[in-house]
């Protein structure tokens, strides 16, 4: 059964390529996550605004984006949108756009729930103390909402990181691309794909520790 000769040296020899690929996945995820937070916050604010004209498009946006697979977005941006706009996106640009779109629908829901999760009395108390609407949000509601939002935002980051492993399909040389390249060069499929799986598990574990630490740091006395 195990006629296959395991050869882990191919992985070790190319460890720099794997790490560079992993680094690409990490920073593409990080940039997309930050953009998704900004976009998601904007959508969430529209949704909690009292204005029906804003609330409905924001709701539709979230439903629409959450119903479409990331892979479809990747192809749609890289091949479809590029043709229509007449812009040749690089793989990384298309990946960031697609990941930001997908992520923003999730962050929008998280921020909406977090803003709703802050006790109404807090905003009322701020108003009673003479805070304007804008500073009530900035200094009273927002800091508390962020604490509620942190754990689910951590999950979204992990989700985006896992999504980022897809970007080799539009030609970005991330760690999965490296693994496929090694497989095609040496005909050793098992080792490189196991390696990228392990790298991802380690990255997720490290990130979970960071989020737990951040939660402890931000916890109110």
């Amino acid at each position: 059964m195990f006629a296959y000769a395991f050869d882990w040296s191919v992985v070790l020899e190319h460890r720099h390529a794997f790490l560079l690929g992993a680094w690409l996945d990490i920073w593409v995820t990080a940039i997309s996550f930050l953009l998704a937070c900004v976009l998601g916050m904007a959508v969430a604010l529209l949704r909690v605004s009292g204005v029906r004209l804003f609330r409905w498009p924001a709701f539709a946006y979230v439903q629409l984006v959450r119903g479409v697979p990331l892979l479809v977005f990747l192809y749609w941006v890289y091949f479809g949108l590029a043709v229509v706009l007449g812009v040749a996106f690089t793989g990384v640009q298309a990946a960031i756009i697609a990941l930001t779109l997908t992520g923003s629908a999730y962050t929008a829901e998280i921020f909406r729930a977090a803003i709703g999760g802050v006790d109404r009395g807090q905003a009322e108390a701020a108003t009673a103390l003479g805070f304007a609407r804008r500073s009530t949000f900035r200094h009273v509601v927002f800091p508390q909402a962020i604490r509620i939002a942190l754990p689910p935002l951590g999950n979204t980051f992990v989700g985006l990181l896992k999504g980022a492993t897809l970007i080799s399909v539009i030609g970005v040389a991330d760690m999965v691309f490296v693994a496929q390249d090694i497989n095609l060069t040496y005909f050793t499929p098992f080792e490189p794909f196991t390696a990228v799986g392990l790298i991802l598990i380690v990255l997720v574990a490290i990130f979970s520790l960071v989020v737990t630490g951040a939660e402890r740091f931000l916890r109110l006395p």
Partner: protein
Amino acid sequence: MSALLAYAFRWSVVQESFGQLEHGLRITLELSLVALVLSLALGLIVALCRMAQFAPLRLAAYAYIQVFRAVSLYIYVLWVYFGIAGATGINLSPLTAGVIALTILNSAYMAEIYRSALGAVDRGQHEAATSLGFGRVRGFTTVVLPQAIRTAVPSLVNQFVDIVKDSSIVAIIGTMDLMGVTNQLVGFYRAPFELYTLVAFFYLTIVLVISALAAGLERHLQRHLR
């Protein structure tokens, strides 16, 4: 804007593609449903192991959940389809590899959903079942589990939606599901924007239909509370 206008949309392609996309739709639904049923069953087993008295079993289930929740479906599909096939000489079809990968990854999520739902069932329910003479197994299957499933349904439905969306990834290894068929049609018609927009609406429709059905199911399961 001039570039926008320069592009001649060919929406007629959409109409011509419907027949083939229908075929892809069937594969997507089959793949997702089989993976759903299998991961529901496997997830329950893992959840029960996670809550077992026997420590090694509990630890093994914990490791299983942590590992498979951290791995991405794409890497796992590649690992099963190329890695396992290369190492053991067992050649799986893309569809089988897809079902295995979707089932195992999602069973880890399902296990956590079951576990929190089972934990939410009042202890008194189990004790009452025991005092009424139910055995351990009967008490679990007829008293505790039905209540847990009621709690778990919304999360399980979300998981099913993820399965449907993630099943598109299996197309990369060569299944002719919605995504695979679309990629082929794009190669044929050279109309990526129209076709990827179309397939996006296919997935969106599936997701909305599932959500609507789930809302009905939840109402049905809550009927005793009215």
